[in-house]
């Protein structure tokens, strides 16, 4: 297990596998950060229920753009130009959850509740990681606090829909059904060799399966608390080994 701490000045001295894995994860992370706003800004900013909600959507997008900026900076410093992630169609995003469009407020709420929560889990993977510039970014309280803010907004909005009952509850259940499996899939394959190598190099903390289970335990409790039904965790999954 690699335990040294690496700063930018020593990056090129590292094993090629370390360099490749870091470059890869930074590009994916940048793509996911800008992938969120690209999913919801077009339809949700103009159609959010209230003007306050519209401003919250804009602020959320700005915060995700700032997370993108930080990841793009880290990637750029190690030679990876991620500007292509700004102009690529959603269908070409690295992670399947970011390949569509969000057109309803219910989907926007559940996206925050379930998918931004995965984002928080992913950022937590880098806490105390061996690449110091990345560890510094995620250990800055702003980035996790902002991500938690998006998760809380989505969770509260989802709970409010569920509490209304009737058609509102049915609509939010449908959105939960849709995003639940996408969230589970975001952790990747449970038997991923690459995931093991990330851990070996101290770039991630948990195996995919462990992080996914912790996430699942957290969201299952919240879904049940909202009075909603737990979706089938295997239906529509890309990675069935969980």
């Amino acid at each position: 297990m690699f335990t040294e701490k690496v700063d930018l000045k020593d990056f090129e001295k590292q094993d090629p596998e370390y360099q490749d894995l870091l470059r890869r994860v930074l590009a994916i992370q940048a793509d996911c950060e800008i992938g969120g706003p690209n999913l919801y800004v077009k339809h949700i900013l103009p159609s959010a229920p209230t003007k306050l909600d519209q401003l919250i959507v804009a602020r959320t997008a700005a915060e995700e753009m700032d997370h993108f900026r930080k990841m793009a900076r880290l990637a750029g410093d190690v030679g990876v130009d991620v500007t292509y992630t700004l102009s690529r169609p959603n269908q070409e995003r690295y992670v399947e959850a970011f390949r569509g469009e969000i057109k309803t407020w219910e989907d926007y709420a559940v996206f925050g509740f379930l998918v931004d929560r995965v984002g928080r889990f992913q950022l937590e993977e880098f806490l105390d990681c061996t690449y110091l510039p990345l560890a510094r970014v995620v250990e800055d309280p702003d980035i996790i606090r902002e991500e938690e803010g998006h998760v809380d907004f989505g969770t509260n909005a989802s709970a409010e829909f569920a509490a209304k009952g009737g058609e509102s509850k049915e609509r939010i259940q449908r959105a939960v059904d849709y995003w639940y499996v996408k969230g589970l899939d975001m952790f990747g394959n449970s038997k991923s060799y690459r995931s093991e190598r990330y851990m070996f190099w101290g770039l991630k903390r948990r195996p995919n399966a462990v992080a996914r289970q912790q996430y699942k335990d957290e969201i299952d409790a919240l879904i049940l608390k909202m009075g909603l039904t737990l979706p089938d965790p295997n239906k529509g999954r890309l990675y069935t080994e969980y």
Partner: protein
Amino acid sequence: MNTMQAAPNTDALDQQFKEFIQGIKKAVGTGIPHLKDDPKIVDQAITDCKEILDVVMEGNVKEWLA
């Protein structure tokens, strides 16, 4: 001594995004305090946010960094 060559657009992209983000946050900060007393200010704030976000979502990076 760092010999690592940064990607060509790194500084320019960082600076451009700082400006985008600052612009949106400024507009949001202007709009929220007036939600109950001045709809014109709020509407203008939303319009300002939308204008910036439309540019970002369009993703015409070459134009921004030219």
